[in-house]
């Protein structure tokens, strides 16, 4: 038996209907993505896969994803008005549906986001009950839930990097819940995804950023905060 449910899983969560996997989960995928992007996008190409491909409109997942891209939380009553809010915020969007993508989870969304000259691609899965998995970021395997505090570090693939990063985090007495590394070819770029039980201090983040072999660092505090 996994972790025990809370009383407020039984009486809760407070959420926007109709269903946790089609609204809450979708909002959370979008909010995680804008944390990676660094703000609300100017442009978004939103691809719904598999089961989502046919049902996203009926379940309002299109409104939910735009709401999340505009940084609305899962219980924000304005999600219903996301089309208007997107217009007000100058967010341009396109929806696309792709079925039969057998490598993906049934409820998968791909986001291609642009903000200024920054472009990112995020693939997220809505696993039910509002739980999500961010499967990929810019082609790297990420696999994090965004429920805890997450650190994404793209760095040169040098030896000792993993040990070094974990020792820096350990100095803050922060517990690492999960850590994964994926790379695109040997001695090329490696992507470290670290989920931690508690947050990091800004100074630690700055220090990691300043390391010469660290190319990019993204810090995502608990997205429900």
């Amino acid at each position, binding site marked *: 038996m996994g972790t025990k449910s*809370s*009383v407020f899983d039984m009486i809760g969560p407070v959420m926007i209907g109709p269903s946790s996997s089609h609204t809450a989960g979708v909002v959370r995928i979008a909010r995680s993505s804008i944390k990676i992007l660094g703000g609300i996008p100017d442009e978004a190409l939103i691809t719904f896969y598999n089961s989502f491909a046919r049902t996203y409109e*009926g379940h309002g997942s299109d409104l939910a994803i735009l709401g999340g891209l505009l940084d609305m939380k899962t219980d924000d009553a304005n999600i219903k008005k996301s089309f208007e809010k997107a217009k007000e915020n100058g967010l341009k969007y396109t929806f696309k549906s*792709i079925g039969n993508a057998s490598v993906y989870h049934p409820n998968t969304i791909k986001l291609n986001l642009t903000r200024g000259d920054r472009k990112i691609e995020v693939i997220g899965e809505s696993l039910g009950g509002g739980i999500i998995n961010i499967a990929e970021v810019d082609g790297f395997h990420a696999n994090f839930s965004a429920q805890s505090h997450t650190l994404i570090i793209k760095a040169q693939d040098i030896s000792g990097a993993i040990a070094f990063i974990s020792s820096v985090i350990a100095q803050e007495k922060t517990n690492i819940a999960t850590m994964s590394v994926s790379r695109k070819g040997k001695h090329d770029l490696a992507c470290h995804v670290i989920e931690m039980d508690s947050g990091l201090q800004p100074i630690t983040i700055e220090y990691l950023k300043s390391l010469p072999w660290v190319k990019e660092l993204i810090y995502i505090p608990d997205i429900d905060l």
Partner: protein
Amino acid sequence: MSYLFESFIGWKSYCEEKNMALYESVIEYEVTQKGKSESDIWKNLDKAYQVMKEAVETGLKDDMSSRSGMINNGAKKVYNHSQAVLSPEFQKLISRALAAKEVNSCMGRVVAAPTAGASGILPGTLYTLQEIHQLSDQKIFEGLLVGAGIALIIEQKASLAGAVGGCQAETGSAAAMASGAIVFCLGGSVDQIFNAVAITIQCMLGLVCDPVAGLVEVPCVVRNASAAAIAYSSAQISLAGVGAVIPVDECVEAMGEIGANMETKYKETALGGLAATLTGQEISKRVLIQDIEILPDEELPE
């Protein structure tokens, strides 16, 4: 160590031993297992009940039409209808359960209790109970805690998800929570509370999950109303001291057994039951997106 909500019989003997009310053991569980403070728990219950009441009121006031067109302000029509089939209270109960659930279907704010699909049942029943019996908010919060304890046990012994156990797991569990809460709020004994849960489950057993077009609209909305009515009928039976014969733990086990043996097409897949009817399929064709690029079987992205 707090009680871990493994069975109703265990819950009862734990509370007797510790000389605790049912709801107190639920608070103890949340404090010791989840590290919450008691004051936060009351605050969260207050928030949840506020949202529930707002959902009822919004559903009776604002426009509630869904994009599919299947939901079209039904709660308001019921609330304002000139003919009451039983009593004005019954009419209000039914319309309130419909209202909160319509809010859920129309992308409004609700409390998933225990799930989003069943989010009209506790609001409809408790709102009406408080109004008729002039109960304090505190009493309702305690009733919600009793309901949460009931759901924790059902979750462990059976399931709360339509995709796992069919609709009996969603609307059935919510009705069981509501019925137990009603009996508690009206001063029933622990046995009477659990008996109400048992009777409710007996009434809801076997219900399949067959949402038309896969949307949480038909039959979900009307099932929230009928589940609210069943919660009251079970409470009425139980408060009079009429027993369920089959003990509550065994009723929950039966629900788990039925859920485990239910075919996948009756578990939220929209492949069976109402979803598979001629009209159900027509609606599905109309509301589901047809402009979709289907990848060939072999060619995988990446």
